[in-house]
C-alpha cells in the first residue's frame, strides 16, 4: 500500500485540505472523499464528459486527473456555479430551455458551457456543437442543449451590459 498524501487546493473558491492515495482520480476525490457528488462518473475513461470540471479555469475530465495533481490549484465543480443570489444564469437557461431530461450529463455540460462562454461569449451553433463534442447525452438529442447554451450566452451578455452601464 502507498501512503496517503495531504493535498491543499481551492475548490469552488474555498480552501480545502484532504487526504488521498496517488491512484485516486480527482473524480473519486471529489465524490468519495469530499462528498461533492454533483460531478458524475459515466465512462471513467475520458469519453463521456460527465465528470467535467474546471482546473485553473480550463475544462478537464476529472476521471483522467489524479487527486494529488491539484495541489495548489483551483477546481470548479457544478456545486460552485450557483451563489447566494440563486442559480447561475447558465443553470437558469438550461432549466427554462429544457436542456436536460434525466440530468446525468447536465453537471458536465453546465461546466463545459461555462468554460466555453468564459472564453467565447458569442459562440456560433457550430462552435457550441464542436465544443460539447466530448459531453455525451443519451436523452435530449442535443438540440435543446444547444438552445440552452445560446439562451445562456444571451442572458450573460445582457447581464454583462447592465453591469457596465
Amino acid at each position, binding site marked *: *500500500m*502507498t501512503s496517503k*498524501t495531504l493535498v491543499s487546493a481551492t475548490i469552488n473558491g474555498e480552501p480545502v485540505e484532504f487526504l488521498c*492515495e*496517488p*491512484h485516486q*482520480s480527482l473524480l473519486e476525490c471529489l465524490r468519495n472523499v469530499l462528498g461533492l457528488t454533483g460531478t458524475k462518473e459515466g465512462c*471513467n*475513461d*475520458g*469519453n463521456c*464528459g460527465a465528470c*467535467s470540471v474546471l*482546473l485553473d479555469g*480550463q*475544462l*478537464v*475530465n476529472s*476521471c*483522467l*486527473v*489524479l487527486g*494529488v*495533481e491539484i495541489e495548489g490549484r483551483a477546481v470548479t465543480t457544478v456545486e460552485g456555479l450557483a451563489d447566494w443570489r440563486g442559480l447561475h444564469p447558465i443553470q437558469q437557461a438550461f432549466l427554462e430551455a429544457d436542456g436536460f431530461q434525466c440530468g446525468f450529463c447536465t453537471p458536465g455540460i453546465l461546466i*463545459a458551457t461555462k*468554460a*466555453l462562454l468564459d472564453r467565447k461569449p458569442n459562440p456560433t451553433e457550430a462552435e457550441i456543437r*464542436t*465544443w*460539447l*463534442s*466530448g*459531453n455525451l447525452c443519451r436523452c435530449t438529442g442535443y438540440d435543446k442543449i444547444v438552445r440552452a447554451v445560446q439562451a445562456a450566452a444571451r442572458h450573460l451578455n445582457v447581464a454583462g451590459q447592465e453591469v457596465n452601464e
Partner: protein
Amino acid sequence: MQPFIYQAPTSVGEAVALLADPACRARPFAGGTDLLVQMRRGLFAPEMLVDVKRIPELNRIDFDLVEGLTIGAAVPCAWLCDHPAVRQHYAGLIDAVSIIGGTAIQWRATLGGNLCNAAPSGDSIPALIVLGATAMLAGPHGARTVPVADFCIAPGKTVLRPGELLISLHVPSPATRTGARYLRFIPRGEMDIAVAGAGAWLALSNDHATITDARIALSAVAPTPLWVKAAGEALIGKPPTAEAFVEAAKIAQEAARPISDVRGTAAQRRHLVGVLTRRALRGALQRAKGEACHD
C-alpha cells in the same frame, strides 16, 4: 487501478534518476489520457508515476524564424492551438493537434504523450514526420536526438531506452513556398480514433511551377505511423498537378499495410489512403502558395 507512488520532479535530472532506478518500475506521466486509461484496463501496473508537467524544459514552446519551433514534450494540444506563431507557421501541425480528443482532452493530451504512446493512429505523428521533426531525448547515459520518422517501432513501442525521457520536439523553421496538411477519416465529426489519416508536405520552386521536395506519411494503416518516402520522391521535379498527386497517392496506397478491425476494413482503409493523400497534397499546395486551405 493498482496503487503506485506519485512523484512530480522539477528537473530533467531528477526525473531521469527516478525513471532509471532499477529498484522501481517507473513510467512518465503527462496528460494521462492514454496512460490512466491503459492502467485501468490492466495493461500496465507501474510502481511509480513520474509526472513530467512540473519540469520547465518540457512545458514550454519556443519559436524563432531561424531556429524553428521547439515544443516541450508535456505541452498540451490546447496550448499549441492557442499559440499565434504555431497557428501562423505550422498549420499542418495544428490540423493534427486540434483534432486529438474533444475540448477537455485537449487541455491534458500532450504532443509528447501522443508520440510516446506510439499508436498507429496517433494523429500528430504523421504531421510531425512530414514536417521533418526530431525528438530530443535525455537518459541516464546522456542526451540524443532521433528523427520522429524513426521513433515508433511497433504498436505502443518506441526507441526510448530504459530511463529515457522525451524532452521536446523540434520542427525546422518554416521555409517560404512550403506547406503542410494533415487529414483523417472518422465516422463522427469529432472525438474518434482515425480509421486512416494522411499528412503531406510540399516545397515549391520560386515560380510555383515545380515541386522541389515532398513528404507523405500515413496513420492507422500499418503497425506504426508510416513515412512513404517513395510517394514524396515521385513528386520531386514534377509540376504540382492533379495527375502528379494521383500518382503519389497510388504509391501511398501500395505502401499501406492496413488491417481489418472494428473501425474499418483493410480495403476501406486502402481506399481512404488514396482519397486522403490527394486531398492532403492539395491542401499542402494551397498553403505553399500562401493561399487558405478549405478542403
